[in-house]
């Protein structure tokens, strides 16, 4: 028997899980049009490889992973690419993002597949990157990165998360009940890649069928897999909380569980790893719970890009639905519209009604009762964080470990004043992120500006140096050409010619004036004097102009 540890706080909200577990997983009907977003993961968006009009086959890569942290995107079925444009995506902002729209031809024609067997871990990781396998528990972080132990210490424990603590969501539960063997095969692959000593599967005790199925599958496997029942408490399925319950290790916000020899994956991710490696089936579909205000709540296996509205229609959405949640009621967000497509992150869609989700009462002032601190599974003081976030005192919020907050919503759930605490924390976190980004951009700009100033100065310097060099060169050549006798004679001749010309100019004297009468001579003298005067005036003018 394994020693289980506890974490602080947690809550017990109504579970609402029974509704959607009565029916087995159903393959959703093929929609006519799939809208596949190019960013369904943490990291850089995938780069589109197709253009409108292209024919695509099921499983064909339509966008490749860009950069280190990224994941590829594939055509979920065969058809024709209609557009590669901005479309509404499931995101709390309601903004659009780049998507590939595929007109489904209904033939489900596969691209050629090359299943892998036991192989080098690096080859397997590359396969996962190329297959677009990301964490399906909700964080959608590319799995191949987490499966690289690097040169760090040995991985002691591989934790597989089947806790599924959030109300309403049952997609992992149903997957474990129906496909435990395949999950276990995926787990074995992960254990091999990480070279982990032991594997612990944590499942909450409200899922006896899943526990039984997983135990049966685990005994069939060669890998040492232990299925552990953990108590049902929200958020016991948070990666950090589950790691703490199973191993007693506490991981801080700025650390990775890998540094403590622990790595954690969701059961659905293990299943996706198995499909990608053993069947060469990229991440084309996922299990999604459609529940809440619908006639037949259940789990669907739906293709990525399926309009959520179609799934809701299939489940019989009731007319008095007031809105839709993606994810659970604790951590999910309101969908801006149901026309948005299913993505790798969509584990659950809940149709809201006034009966199921009565409008939140008006928020009242904080009375500092401390209920939130008692409920916080991350050992924080939400009432203080709230104060700092509200007053935009972000530095102080960070000092109080804002980034250890997992946004589980326990504090908001227990708050007697109904303060939307998590919203404040999300606001503060994204403001801090934006500021850090701005700071980085400013540092780059400073560096570039300083380099520009340095460059201008350097160019000036170089030009001056070049000119100086030229001048010295010229001087050197002049000195090298020592004045020879021939050039001397030439120069003397030129000078003599100039002198002659000048003398000629100055020496023009009126001729034939010997026999003139004195009055005429006087007239000539007067004219000569005027001429001389004008010449003198022109001279002074010239010198002035100069």
């Amino acid at each position, binding site marked *: 028997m394994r020693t289980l540890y506890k974490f602080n706080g947690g809550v017990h909200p109504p579970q609402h899980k029974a509704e959607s577990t009565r029916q087995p997983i159903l393959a959703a009907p093929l929609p006519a049009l799939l809208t596949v977003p190019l*960013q369904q993961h943490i990291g850089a968006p995938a780069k589109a490889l197709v253009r409108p009009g292209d024919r695509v086959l099921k499983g064909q890569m339509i966008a490749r992973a860009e950069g280190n942290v990224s994941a590829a995107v594939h055509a979920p079925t065969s058809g024709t690419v209609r557009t590669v444009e901005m479309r509404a*995506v499931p*995101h*709390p*902002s309601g*903004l659009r*993002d780049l998507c590939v729209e595929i007109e489904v031809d209904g033939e489900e024609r596969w691209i050629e597949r090359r299943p892998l067997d036991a192989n080098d871990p690096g080859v397997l990781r590359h396969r996962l990157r190329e297959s677009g396998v990301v964490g399906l528990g909700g964080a959608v972080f590319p799995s191949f990165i987490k499966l690289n132990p690097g040169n760090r210490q040995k991985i002691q424990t591989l934790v597989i998360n089947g806790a599924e603590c959030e109300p309403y969501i049952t997609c992992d539960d149903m997957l474990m009940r129906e496909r435990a063997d395949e999950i276990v095969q995926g787990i074995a692959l992960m254990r091999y890649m990480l070279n982990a000593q032991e594997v612990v599967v944590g499942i909450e005790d409200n899922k006896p069928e899943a526990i039984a199925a997983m135990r049966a599958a685990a005994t069939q496997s060669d890998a040492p897999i232990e299925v552990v029942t953990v108590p049902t408490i929200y958020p016991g399925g948070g990666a950090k909380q589950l790691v703490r319950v199973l191993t007693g290790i506490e991981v801080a916000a700025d650390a990775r569980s890998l540094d403590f020899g622990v790595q954690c994956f969701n059961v659905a991710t293990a299943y996706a790893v198995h499909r990608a490696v053993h069947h060469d089936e990229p991440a084309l579909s996922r299990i999604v719970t459609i529940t809440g205000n619908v006639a037949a709540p259940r789990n669907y296996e739906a293709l990525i890009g399926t309009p959520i509205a179609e799934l809701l229609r299939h489940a019989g959405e009731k007319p008095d639905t007031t809105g839709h949640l993606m994810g659970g009621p604790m951590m999910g967000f309101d969908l801006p519209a149901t026309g948005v497509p299913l993505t790798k992150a969509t584990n659950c869609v809940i149709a809201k009604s006034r009966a199921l989700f009565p*409008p*939140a*009462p*008006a*928020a009242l002032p904080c009375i500092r009762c401390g209920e939130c601190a008692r409920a916080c599974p991350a050992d924080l003081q939400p009432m203080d964080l709230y104060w700092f976030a509200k007053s935009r005192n972000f530095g102080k919020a960070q000092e109080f470990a804002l980034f250890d907050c997992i946004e589980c919503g326990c504090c908001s759930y227990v708050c007697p004043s109904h*303060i*939307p605490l998590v*919203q*404040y924390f*999300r*606001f503060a*976190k*994204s*403001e801090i*992120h*934006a500021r850090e*980004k*701005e700071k980085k*951009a*400013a*540092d*780059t*700009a*400073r560096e*570039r*500006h*300083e*380099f*520009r100033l340095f*460059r201008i100065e350097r160019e000036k310097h170089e030009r001056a140096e070049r000119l100086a060099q030229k001048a010295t060169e010229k001087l050197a050549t002049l000195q090298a050409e020592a004045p020879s006798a021939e050039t001397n004679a030439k120069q003397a001749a030129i000078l003599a010619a100039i002198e002659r010309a000048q003398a000629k100019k100055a020496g023009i004297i009126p001729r034939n004036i010997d026999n003139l009468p004195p009055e005429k001579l006087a007239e000539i003298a007067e004219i000569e004097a005027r001429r001389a005067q004008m010449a003198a005036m022109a001279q002074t003018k010239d010198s002035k102009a100069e």
Partner: protein
Amino acid sequence: MAALALALGAVLGYAALRFKVEENPLVEQIDAILPQTQCGQCGFPGCKPYATAIAAGEADINQCPPGGEEGIQKLAELLGVEAKPLNAEHGVPKPKSVAFIDENICIGCTLCIQACPVDAIVGAAKQMHTIIAAECTGCELCVAPCPVDCISMQVIPEKIGNWKWRYPVIQIKAA
């Protein structure tokens, strides 16, 4: 005692040389707060000269429109003075933008390249120019020199990548 004093003096003297502060640290601290757009709206040829002027008491803290009220607040905190509203003489804060060159109109005169304080424009004489949007600080210094008015400032749109959670709006009355 004297030997000890001498020894400590030597250590201090060495430390003063070894860990010498190159520049006025206050200038560095002020410069770290300024947004580094290098736009010159403050009346100085760049953020560093403005920071130097503030440190020397020759400029006021409310002359930087891109830094906005928050920048003034931070400067006031750093310098221990009263914050004041932005001086409208130096311009008003605008949404963050990047320059955009209409490449059909550009004649390749290189005037904008010479004006750009962060070398964010690529091009050569009689060749089309283009902005490196990621490096552009939105200073607008390239707009005026363009002889054919082919440069415009475009506000950076809100995308999923730069979207921020909003400040929560609290309902006063239950809906």
